[in-house]
């Protein structure tokens, strides 16, 4: 089991690792091939950019930018491709066509170019990967053109400088030559005294030196200029060899400049040559003259050996012989010369012809040379003209193509716009409809809800209000009832106090005056007429003096009883002392029941004092003061007079008690009435 399990686990682990490795490897490979995928992976998966950088190298911005640009201008690339197909690739070479297309793209879309980080050499070698030909070439081209233009400009500048130098040198040489010639002419023809002549000859020599130096300088400058022009030419050829259209106008301009420089240079050279030829003639003439002079000099010196040069200055020193010899020599010479002249005149035509022939030959040569150079120049001119015309034509064609493409693009945009407008309208209508219906729904539901809410709210408010009102009323009634209850309670309390104060009587002494309690009662029943009446019905005596308690009355009665017994026989008519004696005797001899229950109705026999006393005593013992008082009230005569006070007291007490009991009953009733039924 375990072995199988472990091998199974190992298998699972191996399978998992394989899957993961395969996934990662596949991702890397696909990222290598598809840069957009790579960018997406790098954006979404952290640390993937590190991994992919390790595996594939950094994803340089140019590619990404190219990618982006390609994406954004996919439409335009399609257009460019279409254009290529339309124009045909035989019109322009592929890379040039793509370059043209990219030109158009740039013209139409007006994107700013970003120099690709690839170097120009690789661009020149044609680093155009098959899937993005136009853009990569275009980008490399722009770079190369920049380099080429820079180099051309450099060469142009240098050659211009050199040419200018050469021209300047040539001009200087020409100047020097003319100067020299002039000086020579002057030297030869002018009749000046010998010192000045020597200075003249010195000047001439200096001028000659100048001329030679100038000519040398001109020569060297010319060589340099020629070198520079050659280099420029080679540069131009090289750039032409690149076959890059952007450089063409530059190349053209450079060529034109070159041509101009060459022309100028040639012109100057011809000038120089003419000047030189002229100087040659003049120098020949001067040589001849010098020779003649020398000859003459020799002759003169041979004739007159002691005379040296500068014989013109020796006019004073010459003797007559010398002079004659000189004159004879001169005559001879003149004759000779005349003869020569005649000979010359005869031979002049031949000489002239010969010289003409020579001149013709020379002229021919010069003409040929000039013609050659002119032809060259014209050829060059025409070529340049042709090139210019070609470039112009190309530009024109480019512009036309651009306009056509623009028209196409405009047409396309118009069409797309129209389609989009129509779609937009349709969609808008749909959306508006949907929106309208939804809004309506929402509105109605909202209204419904709000109405419901409102109704509910109103209902709640009403119920709440009613409840509130009910509560208020209840509270008010409660308050009222409580007030009533409080008052009743107060009344009851005061009545109780009254009651208590009634009860709180010591034996044989009246209670405290009930005034305060009665006042309290009166105070606690302001608005109650009944209670007020009752409270005011309390007898004055009880208020001022208080009342006796029942016990004290009982006790007093017991004391009284004996007295009453003793004066039982004494009344208004029988009130002598003898009567007194008799009543005393009766009292001593008569025995009655201590207490006897009184009957319901008194008959005349019951009006006997002794009976009454026993009845009253019984009542008193049983707490019925009222009945006792009633019974006692039946006493007549002296007995009555004797118990008068007691009776009054009893009456007072009874009254008070009655009032108090009434009040308490009333208070109880009121209190009961105010209590809320559960």
């Amino acid at each position, binding site marked *: 089991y375990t072995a199988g399990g472990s091998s199974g686990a190992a298998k699972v682990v191996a399978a998992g690792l394989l899957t993961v490795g395969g996934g990662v490897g596949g991702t890397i490979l696909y990222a290598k091939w598809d840069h957009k995928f790579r960018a997406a992976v790098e954006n979404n998966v952290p640390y993937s950019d590190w991994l992919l950088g390790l595996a594939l190298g950094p994803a340089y911005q140019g590619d990404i930018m190219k990618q982006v640009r390609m994406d954004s201008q996919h439409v335009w690339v399609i257009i460019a491709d279409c254009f290529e197909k339309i124009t045909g690739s035989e019109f322009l070479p592929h890379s040039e066509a793509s370059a043209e297309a990219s030109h158009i793209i740039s013209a139409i879309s007006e994107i700013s170019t970003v120099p690709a980080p690839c170097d120009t050499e690789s661009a020149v070698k044609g680093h155009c990967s098959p899937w993005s030909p136009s853009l990569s070439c275009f980008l490399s081209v722009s770079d190369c053109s920049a380099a080429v233009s820079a180099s051309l400009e450099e060469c142009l500048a240098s050659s211009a400088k050199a040419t200018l130098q050469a021209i300047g040198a040539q001009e200087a040489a020409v100047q020097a030559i003319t100067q020299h010639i002039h000086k020579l002419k002057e030297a030869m023809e002018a009749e000046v005294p010998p010192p000045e002549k020597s200075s003249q000859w010195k000047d001439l020599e200096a001028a000659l030196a100048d001329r030679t130096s100038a000519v040398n300088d001109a020569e060297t400058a010319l060589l340099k200029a020629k070198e520079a022009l050659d280099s420029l030419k080679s540069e131009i050829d090289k750039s032409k060899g690149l076959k890059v259209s952007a450089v063409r106008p530059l190349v053209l301009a450079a060529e034109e400049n070159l041509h101009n420089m060459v022309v100028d240079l040639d012109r100057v050279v011809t000038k120089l040559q003419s000047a030189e030829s002229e100087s040659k003639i003049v120098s020949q003439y001067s040589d001849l003259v010098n020779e003649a002079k020398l000859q003459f000099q020799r002759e003169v010196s041979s004739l007159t050996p002691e005379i040296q040069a500068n014989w013109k200055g020796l006019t004073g020193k010459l003797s007559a012989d010398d002079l004659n010899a000189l004159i004879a020599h001169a005559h001879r010479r003149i004759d000779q010369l005349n003869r020569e002249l005649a000979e010359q005149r005869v031979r002049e035509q031949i000489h002239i012809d010969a010289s003409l022939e020579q001149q013709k030959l020379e002229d021919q040569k010069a003409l040929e040379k000039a013609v050659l150079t002119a032809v060259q120049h014209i050829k060059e001119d025409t070529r340049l003209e042709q090139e210019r015309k070609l470039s112009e034509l190309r530009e024109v064609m480019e512009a036309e193509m651009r306009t056509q493409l623009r028209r196409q693009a405009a047409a396309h945009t118009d069409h797309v716009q129209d389609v989009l407008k129509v779609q937009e309208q349709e969609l808008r209508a749909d959306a508006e409809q949907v929106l309208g219906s939804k809004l309506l729904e929402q509105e109605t539901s909202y209204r419904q809800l709000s109405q419901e809410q409102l109704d509910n709210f109103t209902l709640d408010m009403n119920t709440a209000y009613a409840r509130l009102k009910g509560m208020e009323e209840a509270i008010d009634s409660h308050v009222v009832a409580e007030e009533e209850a409080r008052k009743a309670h107060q009344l009851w309390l005061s009545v109780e106090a009254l009651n208590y104060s009634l009860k709180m009587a010591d034996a044989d002494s009246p209670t405290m005056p009930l005034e305060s309690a009665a006042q309290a009662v009166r105070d606690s029943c302001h608005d109650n007429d009944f209670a007020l009446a009752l409270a005011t019905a309390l007898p004055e005596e009880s208020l001022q003096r208080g009342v006796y308690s029942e016990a004290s009355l009982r006790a*007093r009665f017991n*004391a*009284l009883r004996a*007295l009453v017994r003793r*004066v039982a026989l*004494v009344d*208004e008519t029988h*009130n*002598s*002392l003898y009567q*007194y004696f008799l009543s005393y005797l009766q009292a001593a001899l008569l025995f009655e029941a201590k207490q006897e229950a009184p009957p319901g109705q008194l008959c005349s026999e019951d009006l006997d004092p002794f009976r009454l006393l026993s009845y009253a005593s019984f009542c008193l013992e049983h707490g019925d003061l009222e009945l006792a008082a009633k019974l006692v009230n039946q006493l007549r005569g*002296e007995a009555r*007079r*004797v*118990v*008068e*006070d*007691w009776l009054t007291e009893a009456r007072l007490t009874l009254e008070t008690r009655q009032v108090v009991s009434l009040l308490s009953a009333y208070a109880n009733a009121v209190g009961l009435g105010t209590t809320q039924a559960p």
Partner: protein
Amino acid sequence: MSEKELGKKWDRCLADGAIKFGTGLGLGIVFSVLFFKRHTWPISLCSGAGLGMAFSNCQNDLRSSYLLHRSQKVGLCNKTHSN
């Protein structure tokens, strides 16, 4: 208090009686001694007179509450007429 009145009256009576008796007795004695040559009859007379006076006083006193004064007497006829 009304029940004490009788007692007071009796006290008065007794006091009065005693005084009168004593005074009578004294007077009697005096009279008897002075005027009546020590007969006992003035003593007893005077004392008896004294006692009698006392008795009468006592009786009057006891009756006094029943006596009607002139101001208190009213014509009954008027009363009945007024009813």
